[in-house]
């Protein structure tokens, strides 16, 4: 798979986790591909942390430059049933348990469900923005990412970079497999049949627990 195919492969699998009616926040990059792959009959409400509930496609008719933008300040639009809020309501929605799912990328995830995706010491500072609130608040946190970074494992026993939040990740989806974080560690639920289990473990620093019903990657 080339990079683009890989991203679509992961996004397609992540889309299967969404249920009809879910309120969902998508991080930048790969997560934004997820809506393309929503299963038939599943409609979700996309939320953006700068106060948009019900994001939809930007068209010539609905574009409103300088008045409607997403969390990255890119042009955005709402669906007919969407609405705007201020930042207080937007983050209250997340922390208050009204956001069903957040799907985001990460630099590292560990077997305790902690993740690090907001800063690399010594490199240019970006800031956490809304990421810390999102992962603490969302009812289900799904990390989508490449399994390794230039061959180096990103799924670790303990994160090495500063945490975004601790013990909050529910699921990790990579091109190699689908993993759930549970009390005992990381459970491999599904695997991509182009890899052997040994290869997947080799690319993972944390010890993978094989699910009793381990099966090929659902698509």
């Amino acid at each position: 798979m080339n990079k683009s195919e890989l991203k679509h492969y992961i996004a397609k699998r992540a889309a299967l986790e969404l249920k009809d009616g879910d309120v969902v926040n998508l991080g930048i990059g790969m997560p934004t591909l997820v809506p393309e792959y929503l299963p038939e009959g599943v409609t979700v409400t996309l939320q953006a942390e700068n106060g948009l509930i019900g994001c939809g496609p930007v068209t010539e008719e609905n574009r409103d430059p300088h008045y409607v933008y997403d969390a990255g300040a890119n042009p955005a639009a709402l669906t007919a049933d969407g609405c705007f809020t201020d930042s207080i309501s937007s983050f209250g929605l997340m922390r208050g348990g009204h956001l069903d799912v957040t799907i985001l990328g990460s630099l590292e995830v560990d077997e305790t469900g902690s993740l690090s995706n907001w800063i690399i010491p010594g490199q240019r500072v970006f800031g956490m923005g809304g990421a810390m609130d999102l992962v603490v608040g969302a009812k289900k946190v799904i990390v989508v990412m490449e399994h390794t970074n230039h061959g180096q494992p990103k799924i670790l026993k303990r994160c090495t970079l500063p945490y975004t939040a601790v013990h909050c990740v529910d699921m990790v989806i990579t091109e190699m497999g689908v993993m759930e974080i549970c009390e005992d560690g990381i459970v491999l639920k599904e695997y991509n049949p182009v890899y052997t289990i040994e290869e997947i473990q080799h690319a993972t620093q944390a010890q993978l627990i094989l699910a009793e019903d381990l099966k090929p990657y659902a698509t």
Partner: protein
Amino acid sequence: MNKLISAKEAAAKIPDGATIFIGGYMGESSAKAVIRELLRSEKGGFTLLANDGGQVRKGEAEPYLGIAQLIHAGKVRKLIATHVGLNPEVSELVNQGKMELVLLPQGSFAEMIRSAGAGLGGVLTPTGVGTEVEKNEFTIGKQVIQGKEYLLMAPLRADVALINGTKIDKNGNIWYRGSTRTFSTVMVTAADLVIAEANRIVPVGEVAQENIMTPGVYVDYVVAWEEES
């Protein structure tokens, strides 16, 4: 009461070295006319509290948007924000020791301002537990409530709130179009001096009373945005 003043008069009311809330998001929806006057003034040494560091659009005629203009002009001593990724200059200035930066989670930032403006003594939030946010100068404690850990975040006040509204009447009642309101609705509650810049000044009553998003009682002065030829 008529709260209308010029952008120049508004900028004159902002003290040198003031602590200022700046409304807007990534350089969009900022109080452009008042910022323009601040840039022309000798004033500086500001501490800015804002969502972000504005935005720099390389290669454009006016690459610095919103707060990025004040930062670029060297007028900012300290920035308290949640995300500075769209303004690479922030990172450079911080590394050179020319500006101080404090980063806060965006939701905590919003509630810390709200608590100050609502007369509360801070906010207990689960956001930031176990992270570097615990070492922040505004994180004043940690508590376990009903078995769950929370950080106690200090209330955030400022000398001045400088925000933009889409339609504002002479009494300072504000309506915000689209996604432009973000933090402005709470910033106006937690500052000693509130200046609201309107894209359009409207007659009282044009915005239906139930659609007023910021009550004029919070606003001290209203400025009209005008392009300069």
